[in-house]
């Protein structure tokens, strides 16, 4: 709906200042779109596709070739530009898709799950390009199933569950919302865990918990609390074998905000397809 491929069933949305329902042509002039499937014509070469896209966006004929070559070069496809797209790998297709979406220097760029199915190297290359675009002032609207990707790339993040935004904010704020960071300690064999718990009790927001030789402390001030805790344990003659600072992740945020439901499970339960958890 935001890229004007679907007519809204209700409500209002504005993209780059234009209403998607009443001013779709204006919206299309301002946006670039790379859809979930890199929908490219396999019979055409990379150059031909980029130049076609340039023409469709009204770029003057004298600039079409140079602008196309610039973008092909920017996404690292210069050597493959003359080859048919059908011979491209998944990562190359994605990069070409991105080049086509950028041909008219859009104000807003929509990327629909841009790294799905890509190998780690291609994914990192694409992330780098998205960061570069963001730094150049392009608003990037990115949808992803990979929460690490969202954490890496997004300044503002919205979590959608069952078609509704259930949470919105900066990644840091969303993570802070679900809980504080934890310090997990493993003490040397034979340590008195109950006494150790008393030593560090004053540092955490909650009473530290123990399990086996593990001691878990909820930190009020994050990493700044680590040094005083270690000093206190050292002063009390405890030896720390291992230490790990655990920050809440967007996975935690997602699970908490969406209620850990599998997509479609609710409908299935209502239809009696999926049985409720066995007693």
């Amino acid at each position: 709906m935001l890229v004007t491929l679907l007519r809204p069933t209700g409500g209002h949305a504005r993209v780059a200042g234009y209403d998607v329902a009443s001013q779709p042509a204006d919206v299309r002039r301002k946006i670039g779109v790379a859809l979930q499937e890199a929908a490219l014509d396999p019979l055409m070469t990379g150059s031909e596709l980029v130049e076609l896209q340039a023409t469709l966006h009204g770029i003057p004929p004298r600039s079409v070739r140079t602008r196309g070559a610039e973008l092909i070069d920017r996404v690292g496809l210069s050597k493959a530009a003359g080859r048919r797209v059908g011979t491209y790998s998944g990562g190359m297709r994605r990069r070409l898709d991105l080049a086509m979406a950028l041909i008219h220097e859009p104000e807003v760029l929509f990327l629909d799950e841009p790294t799905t199915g890509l190998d780690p190297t291609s994914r990192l290359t694409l992330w780098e390009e998205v960061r570069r675009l963001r730094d150049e002032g392009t608003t990037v609207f990115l949808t992803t199933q990979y929460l690490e990707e969202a954490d890496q790339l997004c300044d503002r993040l919205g979590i959608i569950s069952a078609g509704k935004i259930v949470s919105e904010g900066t990644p840091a704020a969303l993570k802070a919302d679900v809980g504080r960071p934890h310090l997990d300690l493993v003490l040397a064999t034979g340590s008195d865990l109950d006494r150790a718990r008393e030593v560090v009790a004053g540092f955490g927001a909650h009473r530290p918990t123990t399990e086996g030789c593990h001691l878990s402390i909820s930190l009020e001030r994050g990493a700044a609390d680590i040094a005083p805790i270690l000093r206190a344990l050292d002063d009390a003659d405890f030896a720390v074998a291992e230490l790990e600072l655990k920050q809440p992740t967007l996975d935690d945020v997602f699970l908490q905000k969406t209620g850990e439901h599998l997509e479609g499970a609710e409908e299935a339960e209502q239809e009696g397809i999926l049985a409720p958890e066995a007693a």
Partner: protein
Amino acid sequence: MRRAVVALARRTLVNALRRPQFLAPLVVFPSLFLAVNVGGLGATRGLRGFPQVDGFLDFQLSAAIVQSLLLGGVSTGIAVALDIEGGFFDRLVASPTPRVAIVLGRVLAASVIAAFQVTYFLVLGLVFGASIKGGPLGVLCVYAIGIVAGTGFGAIGVLIALRARSASTVQGIFPLVFVVLFISSAFFPLDLLSSPADVIARYNPLSFIANGMRQPIAFSNAVAPVIEGLLAAAGVTVAAVGLSILALRGRLRDA
């Protein structure tokens, strides 16, 4: 918009050349049909009601052209449906290019392919002994009707693809092409068709289109059949292009 139309037509033509398996049947199949008809049904020239012609090939040539142009329409429809299935169509729709240009680009390419089809069959006919009675002017008349009709059939293909959104469904209309063609006077004169085929054929636009091209090939440059053929082809084209544009708008609304 003109640049977008030309660019989209160019893309269609380049694709057609790179996918010869789509282009070849447009002329190979009607050629085989023409060979079988001319070889096996030539004796029908002796039937009462069959017009006086120099050769049966002269008479059948326009039928082969119409058949080829109809197959061109199916091929255009399949190509559009493949674009829809593969998502490329969404890329076109998400660009600021006018919707009309998407349809016009396709039909412009269909008209260029139609010119190639007409050329192929005229050359084939001349090689195998047919003659163009209307001379150079007659050849121009055949081109005019053939190109306009090919454009219209291409637009019908676009229309069906926009409605069906599936290449296999568009391919399913293939047999219909023959049904519509056989109930016209493309292969046999109207007087030799029995009821109700003769009644349907009398109003079938394909009859006018085939007769319009047959007149300068097999007889003379009589104005009336050529004008009727041209008008029928133009009518099909205007209606099909208009409906295709409406179908594209409808597709966007319903999506």
